[in-house]
């Protein structure tokens, strides 16, 4: 093997491993849904498909252990799918464990433990072998004896099949169907579980002779009749994961001749011989081309003789009327298919994260250079140059947004992993609860999603452990036994807001205050509002749990969570009502790298505010003018009391008294603050560069940026500012 080959193989392998992780996630997700809705065929299909994809991929790379193991899990899923085994708790536990086991096996590959040919027998480690045995035991053993599937199907079939429950199905499998692991046989077996297949015809005339056959290509086309009172959605679900490799046409009972005609058109086009053959097959199958006519006349050759010309006639006469009809029907089918598979049919291009980062860095530099060019154009006062640079800037902004969009991933992926945690933890604690996830498709920067996973996990565990009561306690408190935990994500003015909300016992104000007093965190006689009390929880070393449990309360407390969130330039807030529950709200900027900024100047220093938080710019209010040397105070904004902060005095810069200054009102979440600046420069594309370690302690600064002119501007952190202002006010208030 050459080096190039080895490299390609390694890349493909990495690709497989990444895909397998994604598949495992889907697998687990489907299983968890199944736990609550054991009869959901779509979820079974999804789990099956995920396992199948892993197996297929592993097979390609010769990871025999993974193949062997996954195959057993897949077989059990298959049995569940066609009803040979019913889903129960044991099954679910074993399947969930199989997920973990697959992960372990994959991890071994990742560590280089198992390579190609490294483990030729596909020997499983003992733990995996045990699980295999357990899965096989659940199968009731011997999948080989799959024998009479069609026959019992007839027994389970819904009420005696009557003509008006007879579906006509036309399945044409694509060339790659077999290669992709789809076996039409499996679909038929499954279909037979839903009703009775009353007639089936394999259109084997299409199968080439042996010497011309590609043994792995699929040439199968089936026409079949199915009896059963099933909905279209149910039948579509059967073929859900064949949609890419097969053309599935379902004609419901009582379909009109026009629909059959459309099918003929679809299958045979203008091929008269093929048409004749298809009619022949339908005749054999007893397809009722036209319900009324066949009911009136006995189903013999003469009936067909009447029906056939009728169809042909329509074909000649109503081409135009029929055309759009057919197409719209097709559209519906396709759309239906897409909706159901939303989430997993999107195609991805795998890109290395560092390539993406390089691109974003470059675009960042481009934006800076662009601002510079624009500035020069303005200075030259050349209209054409100004116009051209404005156009370039416009495009650059779009490019920037698109590039940042590349890094955006739905938060749902992070949320999804909580399903399993919640299930396991709830079981462990003997609590009953339902996890609800809303807004999982809200997107945010990948690095933030990753950084958020741990803090969120902590919050979820906290809610489970401390927030939610045991079922009996809940009942005693007049609440449903089943607790409710809700994770939501939504966009809000350039930010993303994530909430973890439970309907548990809520925070205990007295206990928090007592603990904080005991620890000397607050003065014994301090008068605090609820929100301030809740904030105490975020102080380092604060933990109120009376009993240190296995789950949380290990000293790594909410202070770590808060620090994590703040390092993402985010904000965390607690809301709670005794007996009603607790809500933790996290506000985060959408991205860390670039923002639309609002450029201001104080003395010689430039300050950038995120444009999204700027709500208005007004003249300096009288209250602030009369403020003397004070750096902060409050003013009346249309009847509302809003704090103001003089940036020059706050940062100890010279104040130009005679200058006409401005006040920028910024809003972040619920709080507002007015910032006094010397000059407003307007909108500015800002690429945030982190401040060096030396300046990390400067709380109110989020970073720096370089202006087009080469000068440095400081990016203000509005949360930090509000916080510092609050602290300073509290201190100066205390001094007085």
């Amino acid at each position: 093997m050459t080096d190039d080959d080895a490299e390609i193989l390694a890349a493909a392998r990495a690709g497989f491993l990444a895909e397998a992780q994604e598949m495992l996630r889907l697998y687990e997700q489907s299983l968890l849904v199944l736990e609550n809705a054991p009869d959901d065929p779509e979820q079974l299909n999804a789990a099956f498909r995920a396992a199948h994809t892993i197996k297929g991929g592993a097979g390609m790379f010769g990871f025999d252990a993974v193949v062997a193991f996954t195959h057993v899990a897949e077989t059990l899923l298959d049995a569940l799918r066609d009803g040979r085994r019913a889903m129960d708790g044991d099954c679910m536990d074993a399947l969930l464990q199989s997920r973990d086991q697959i992960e372990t096996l994959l991890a071994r590959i990742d560590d280089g433990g198992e390579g190609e040919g490294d483990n030729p027998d596909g020997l499983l480690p003992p733990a995996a072998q045990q699980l295999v045995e357990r899965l096989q035991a659940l199968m009731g053993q011997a999948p080989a004896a799959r024998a009479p599937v069609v026959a019992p199907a007839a027994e389970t079939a819904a009420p005696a099949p009557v003509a008006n429950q007879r579906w006509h199905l036309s399945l044409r499998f694509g060339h790659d169907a077999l290669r992709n692991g789809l076996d039409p046989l499996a679909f038929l077996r499954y279909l037979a579980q839903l009703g009775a297949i009353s007639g089936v015809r394999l259109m084997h005339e299409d199968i080439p002779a042996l010497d011309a056959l590609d043994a792995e290509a699929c040439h199968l086309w089936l026409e079949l009749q199915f009896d059963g009172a099933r909905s279209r959605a149910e039948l579509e679900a059967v073929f859900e994961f064949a949609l890419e490799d097969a053309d599935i046409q379902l004609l419901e009972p009582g379909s009109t001749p026009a629909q059959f005609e459309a099918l003929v058109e679809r299958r045979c086009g203008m091929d008269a011989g093929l048409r004749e053959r298809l009619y022949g097959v339908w005749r054999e199958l007893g397809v009722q081309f036209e319900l009324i006519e066949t009911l009136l006349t006995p189903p013999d050759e003469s009936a067909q003789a009447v029906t056939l010309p009728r169809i042909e006639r329509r074909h000649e006469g109503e081409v135009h009327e029929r055309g759009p009809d057919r197409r719209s029907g097709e559209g519906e089918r396709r759309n239906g298919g897409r909706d159901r598979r939303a989430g997993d049919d999107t195609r991805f291009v795998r890109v290395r994260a560092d390539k993406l980062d390089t691109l974003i860095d470059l675009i960042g530099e481009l934006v800076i250079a662009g601002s510079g060019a624009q500035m020069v154009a303005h200075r030259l006062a050349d209209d054409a140059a100004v116009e051209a640079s404005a156009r370039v800037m416009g495009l650059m902004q779009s490019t920037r947004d698109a590039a940042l969009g590349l890094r955006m991933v739905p938060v749902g992926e992070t949320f999804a992993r909580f399903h399993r945690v919640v299930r396991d933890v709830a079981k462990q604690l003997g609590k009953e609860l339902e996890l609800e996830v809303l807004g999982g498709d809200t997107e945010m920067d990948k690095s933030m999603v990753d950084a958020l996973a741990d803090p969120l996990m902590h919050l979820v565990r906290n809610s489970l452990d401390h927030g939610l009561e045991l079922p009996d306690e809940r009942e005693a408190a007049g609440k449903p036994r089943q607790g409710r935990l809700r994770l939501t994500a939504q966009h809000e003015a350039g930010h993303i807001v994530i909430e973890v909300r439970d309907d548990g016992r809520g925070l205990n104000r007295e206990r928090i205050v007592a603990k904080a007093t005991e620890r000397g965190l607050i003065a014994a006689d301090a008068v605090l509002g609820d929100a301030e009390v809740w904030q105490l929880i975020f102080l380092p070393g604060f933990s109120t749990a009376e009993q240190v449990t296995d789950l949380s309360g290990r000293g790594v407390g909410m202070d770590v969570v808060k620090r994590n969130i703040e390092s993402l330039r985010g904000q965390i807030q607690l809301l709670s009502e005794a007996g009603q529950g607790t809500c933790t709200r996290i506000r985060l900027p959408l991205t860390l790298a670039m923002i639309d900024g609002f450029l201001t100047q104080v003395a010689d220093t430039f300050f950038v505010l995120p444009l999204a938080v700027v709500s208005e710019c007004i003249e300096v209010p009288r209250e602030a003018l009369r403020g003397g040397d004070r750096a902060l105070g409050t003013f009346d904004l249309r009847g509302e009391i809003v704090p103001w902060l003089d940036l020059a005095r706050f940062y100890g810069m010279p104040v130009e008294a005679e200058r006409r200054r401005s006040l920028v009102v910024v809003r972040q979440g619920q709080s507002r603050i007015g910032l006094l600046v010397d000059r407003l420069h307007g909108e500015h594309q800002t690429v945030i560069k982190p401040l060096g370690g030396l300046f990390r302690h400067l709380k109110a600064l989020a970073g720096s940026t370089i202006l087009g002119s080469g000068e440095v501007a400081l990016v203000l952190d509005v949360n930090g500012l509000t916080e510092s202002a609050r602290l300073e006010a509290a201190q100066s208030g205390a001094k007085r």
Partner: protein
Amino acid sequence: MSEALTAEADWTIAEAAARQQSLLLALESQFEDLAIDASGIESIDSAGLQLLLALRASLRQRNLGLQLLRPSEALRNACAIYGLQSELLGEP
């Protein structure tokens, strides 16, 4: 009719190419109806069935027939699902 060919156990897609090769070999020297002892077929999927149908098509081109003798349970089952009992197995 010459002696019946004995069918291998695995007629799934994994082995389809191999089965095709051996069938082609058998076909080369075939001047009368081909009989295959199908009792040993342990597993067969759509790819396997397709091979049998292709084999039959090839034989037909030469006006020859195909007989699958003593079909195994797996083969019977697959044929039943596809409605090929009479076509392939000569059963009613």
